[in-house]
């Protein structure tokens, strides 16, 4: 166990594993995502109340789900950074923050466009939408703070603290639809209950969520590799790797 933990902290070991995993993550991600989207767009039945505009759900829910889930992963990595000073955890936080930003933006954008035909408005300042907007600012703050501090170790610690402070927002997003009156409908997937949709709707949704997860995995591996190369360029193995790839 401890040996595994130790290995996990080794950038060189991670780099090798990531290289082997990435083709599978990319292929699986694209396959599942496309299957979910095509099924959802063309084959799923139309909603009796919202009509066809509900088809936005097949990208709205995956991006919103990932946006929050990426933040939780970043928070776990932030604890690891602060407690064990593991370099790889900090590399993870730094590499995935822009991905989280894009996903949060997409969930807000698709939500607004869905809101127009459904609620009659692009935006309301209610709990779910506002807490999601705060998540967008948190991602932006993490990226900005990391860029503002030149020293790698100070940046890692400051960013980790910010990520941990911001994690309080996640349960607020999650329960906002139950705690406050909101235009937003309740969650589609709950751990304890069966989805309230018919299977022809939630199966493609589940496929696109899983697909986006895999695609995120690919992006995370790719971006972490980039960060590792830049940080470890003075080491022997990076030099060998770079010079070997040339010929």
């Amino acid at each position, binding site marked *: 166990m401890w040996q595994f933990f130790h290995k996990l902290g080794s950038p060189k070991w991670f780099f090798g594993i990531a290289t082997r995993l990435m083709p599978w993550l990319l292929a699986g991600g694209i396959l599942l995502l496309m299957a979910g989207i095509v099924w959802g767009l*063309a084959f799923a*039945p139309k909603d009796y109340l919202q*009509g*066809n505009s509900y*088809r936005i759900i097949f990208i709205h829910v995956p991006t919103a789900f990932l946006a929050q889930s990426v933040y939780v992963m970043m928070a776990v990595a932030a604890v690891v950074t602060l407690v064990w000073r593991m370099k790889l955890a900090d590399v993870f936080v730094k590499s995935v923050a822009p991905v989280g930003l894009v996903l949060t933006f997409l969930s807000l*954008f698709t939500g607004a466009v869905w809101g*127009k035909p459904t609620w009659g408005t692009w935006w309301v300042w209610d709990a779910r939408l506002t807490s999601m907007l705060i998540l967008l600012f948190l991602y932006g703050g993490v990226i900005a703070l990391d860029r503002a501090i030149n020293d790698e170790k100070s940046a890692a610690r400051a960013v980790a603290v910010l990520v941990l402070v911001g994690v309080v927002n996640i349960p607020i997003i999650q329960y906002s639809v139950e705690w406050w009156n909101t235009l937003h409908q309740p969650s589609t997937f709950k751990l304890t209950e069966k989805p309230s949709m018919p299977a022809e709707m939630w199966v493609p949704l589940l496929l696109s969520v899983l697909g986006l997860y895999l695609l995120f995995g690919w992006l995370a591996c790719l971006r972490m590799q980039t960060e590792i190369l830049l940080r470890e360029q003075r080491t022997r193995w990076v030099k060998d790797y770079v*010079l070997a790839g040339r010929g």
Partner: protein
Amino acid sequence: MAFDSFSAFMVMEGHGPYVWSCYAAFFLLMIGLMVWSLRRRKAAIEACRRGYEFQAGRQDASASAASFTRVKVSQD
């Protein structure tokens, strides 16, 4: 199929512009993010390679500066 024809699929009973603009934004940003990340990794590898070549070049230069070479100079 939930639609009778391709044009019905595009129009989506008037919800087409909403649905398609969402999907367009999604694909645009996701593909953009993927291409950007791939290019960044390529650029990082290139930057490392140039760094090593620069170092190697400097070592060669300092090596030649410190070594003696026999130069024929006329003694007259």
